[in-house]
């Protein structure tokens, strides 16, 4: 008879991040690696823009293909709840990832993998405050994105001092100019928290360098990029808030494969972050980051 | 000559008695930026008369009639329609005052069908409100019939105007203005692109329209055409009125000479064997 591990298993992963987004690329890499190791058939889908309506449609489209399991990120539990619940009603096990445990419960997911953005924001804020920061800017490359707004507000809470949001673009040139402008317009700023390591974090470090403020203005970022890790390693940036996106892609696929083959499932949600990456471990992580694992 | 009768789609308008002034303008000026196109022009159009507007290229004829038909607002000057001061805020106002115009550039949409162009802005509708619609079958028939009257057998009234020949296009514009002409019909060089047959049709039309009691302003460079149908003649030159004559006060030769270069043409005509 066929052994359980030979049973073909199809898993669909719906992710809200654009295909070219480096952060989500790491999630996808984790998921793909897991699929290879577990011998599952994995397809990953994402909407063209941060579009919850479109994402709900993608989840519905996934449901129609009756996969053995569905993984989805949940930037908006209300907008996606209906589609996710329909998948569950069709008997498809759903794991939510890259979202907070509360969200996972709300949509009735089997398990949730991820971090709570507010919590992560608070952690970052505290760390910044401990470094002596009083006035911060929160560099947001996608104003209006709920998760990013939560990071900023969590940060403000944990930070304690004043914190303003700086809206920027995905373009590093424009972003650098805007950060430079913000620093020159308000010399009291001593901390910069970026919500994206490539666009926000690396450019913030450059801007600070150009203005000769290295050491006076602390830069930190959510998530990782090889360049930013290098900055941490050489001391021009303070830390990065890591939620280990590789795990957010890897674990759900493994769990769903195990569930499909053996009916196994862990007892509770997985907190993949936040953890702070500081100078001590940045160098180690940098190489892995270049391979899209960290 | 039955088929040549005019069709007034509008409810029969009350035409003022023959000879009463329909349009009077006095010392009208029009400037475009720093260009002075009309430097003070006056004229009077009476009901039941054809006024020929003559003049060299760039004299300001088209600018003048665009002012009369609401396209341009005069920079200064007096403008009366049936004795009352007129303030047209657009061509629609002029149309509503009963002034129909064939513009020199024809005012047609190349991508639209002949029928749609014919009825553009004045589509006959039927049905009650939310279901009010244009009776295109009727429109097509009218277009076909009116075009045929002017001597053009359009292959297909659904053909785009952009695919018509220059003369065919001119005929659509004329047929349209005549069909909708209410009190005043203005024709800016209507015969310029027309064949012999179509030209004679248009001149006949003008004659009939006059007979029906409308006033007609007819712009042409062809003195023969002007003299064939005109009752009065106004000559413009470099944005000013050069003079105005009734038919009996002038002659074809005199008009020809008046229009700048008339003499030259005569000499050329002689040079080339007297045929111009």
């Amino acid at each position, binding site marked *: 008879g066929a052994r359980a591990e030979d049973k073909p298993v199809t898993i669909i992963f719906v992710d809200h991040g654009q295909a070219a987004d480096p952060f989500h690329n790491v999630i996808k890499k984790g998921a793909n690696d897991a699929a290879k190791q577990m011998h599952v058939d994995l397809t990953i889908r*994402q909407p063209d823009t941060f579009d919850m*309506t479109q994402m709900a449609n993608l989840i519905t*489209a996934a449901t*129609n293909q009756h996969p053995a399991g569905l993984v989805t990120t949940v930037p908006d539990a209300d907008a996606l709840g209906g589609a996710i619940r329909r998948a569950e009603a069709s008997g498809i096990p759903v794991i939510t990832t890259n979202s907070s445990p509360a969200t996972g419960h709300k949509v009735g997911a089997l398990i949730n993998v991820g971090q709570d953005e507010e919590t992560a924001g608070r952690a970052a804020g505290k760390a910044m405050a401990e470094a002596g920061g009083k006035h911060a800017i929160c560099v947001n490359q996608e104003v*209006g994105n709920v998760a990013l707004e939560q990071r900023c507000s969590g940060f403000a809470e944990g930070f304690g001092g004043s914190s303003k949001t700086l809206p920027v673009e995905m373009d590093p040139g424009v972003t650098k100019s805007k950060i430079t402008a913000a620093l020159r317009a308000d010399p009291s700023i001593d901390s910069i928290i970026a919500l994206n390591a490539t666009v926000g974090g690396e450019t913030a470090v450059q801007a600070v360098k150009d203005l000769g403020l290295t050491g006076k203005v602390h830069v930190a970022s959510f998530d990782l990029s090889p360049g930013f890790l290098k900055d941490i390693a050489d001391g021009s940036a303070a830390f990065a808030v890591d939620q280990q996106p590789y795990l957010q892609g890897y674990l759900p696929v493994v769990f769903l494969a195990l569930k499909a083959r053996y009916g196994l499932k862990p007892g509770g949600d997985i907190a993949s972050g936040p953890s702070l990456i500081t100078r001590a471990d940045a160098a180690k992580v940098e190489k892995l980051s270049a391979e899209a694992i960290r | 000559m039955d088929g040549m009768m005019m069709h007034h789609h509008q409810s029969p308008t009350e035409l003022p008695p023959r000879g009463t002034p329909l349009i009077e303008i006095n010392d009208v000026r029009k400037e475009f930026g720093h260009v002075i196109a009309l430097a003070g022009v006056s004229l009077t159009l009476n009901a039941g008369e054809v006024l020929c507007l003559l003049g060299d290229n760039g004299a300001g004829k088209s600018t003048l009639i665009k002012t009369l038909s609401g396209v341009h607002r005069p920079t200064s000057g007096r403008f009366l329609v049936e004795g009352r001061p007129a303030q047209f805020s*657009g061509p629609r106002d002029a149309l509503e005052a009963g002034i129909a115009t064939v513009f020199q550039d024809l005012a047609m949409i*190349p991508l639209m069908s002949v029928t749609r162009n014919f009825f553009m802005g004045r589509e006959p509708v039927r049905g009650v409100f939310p279901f009010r619609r244009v009776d295109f079958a009727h429109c097509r028939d009218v277009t076909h019939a009116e075009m045929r009257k002017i001597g053009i057998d359009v292959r297909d009234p659904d053909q785009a105007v952009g695919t018509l020949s220059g003369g065919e296009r001119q005929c659509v514009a004329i047929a349209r203005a005549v069909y909708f002409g209410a009190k005043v019909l203005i024709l800016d060089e209507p015969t310029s692109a027309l064949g012999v047959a179509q030209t004679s049709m248009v001149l006949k039309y003008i004659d009939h329209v006059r007979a029906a009691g409308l006033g007609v302003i007819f712009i042409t460079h062809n003195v023969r055409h002007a003299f064939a149908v005109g009752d009065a003649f106004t000559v413009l030159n470099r944005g000013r009125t050069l003079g105005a004559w009734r038919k009996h006060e002038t002659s074809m030769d005199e008009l020809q000479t008046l229009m700048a270069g008339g003499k030259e043409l005569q000499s050329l005509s002689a040079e080339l064997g007297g045929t111009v």
Partner: protein
Amino acid sequence: MTPGTIDRTIDAAMPATAPAADRDERLRQTGAFTQLMRRPELGAIGGLIVVVAFFAVTASASMFSLDGLMSVLNPAAQLGIMAIAASLLMIGGEFDLSIGSMVAFAGLVFGVLLVSWHLPLPVAIAGTLVAAGLIGALNGQLVIRTRLPSFIVTLAFLFILRGLSLVGLKIVTGGSTQMRGFTDASADSLIRPLFSGSAFSGLFGWLAHHGIVASLPDGSPATQGIPIAVVWFVVFTALATWVLLRTRLGNWIFASGGDSNAARNSGVPVDRVKTGLFVFSSVAAALVAILTVLDAGSTDAMRGQQKEFQAVIAAVIGGCLLTGGYGSAVGAFFGSVIFGTVSIGLTYTQFDSDWFQVFLGAMLLIAVIFNNQLRRKVTGER
């Protein structure tokens, strides 16, 4: 861009009434198929055929199940409602880039009326549509008064409305960019089924009960019905087609876009027509906002992003000219369906998601080229 290459007119779509009796010797005989294909609307079918054929080969069979089709049609319809309005506006010679932001802004207005002020659903909907209409009228008046290109005026509103949505949402929710509670607030309204859920669900329930369509394990039909957005989409298409081809307003729209000077000189009230079209496009965006907000139960500040762009894409795929004066609502219908099918359909295939955009681009290009070549071949245009 060359009008000269178009020998068909919008009326090709109307049944010929001229008697065939007096045939002109200067016309070649053409078959019924040619006659049919000369209808600009039907040209766009060619692209759809290519797209469907592609997916028939590459996609999982579930795409062509009833359920799969609905999942393709629903987003196509949401886009399509805006694309229909955008196509009318493009035919009228203008653009509206603010409709994407209008979706977010209308969602905010709707939320304030329904959730914050607890107004009944019909009032909230009417209020939202009126507010959107007013902004559309403002757009139109600005374009007409300043005589600036509508591109730049509505672009300003793209930013302004997006910004106001963000600010407004933060004020209303006390700091969040996401607003919830629509489902509860509208739950017991009688007119809710007109704007949310699926139409004909009774029928589908019956069909599922009798095993004609698939059911879920819990006994409910797998396809709950036809998403209400699809119904609106079809109604919009039919209405816009009727207006364009049969009414006086339709003629005015074509004329205004074809040559606004010539139209004005012929007595078409160009300014009123254009203002009306701006109002219509804003209202269509607001309707999409209402439909999606009630569906999702929430709204956020990023709703509708890029939709202005996609609506123009759908209209152009469907044969609208960017320069105005030419196009059709049915074309925009097929354009939206093609765009929707390609972008959702790829999820039913096995292609790596990194390649999606490459496929999307290639499919669009092939579909549009096919539209064009088919029509040209059939009509003998060169």
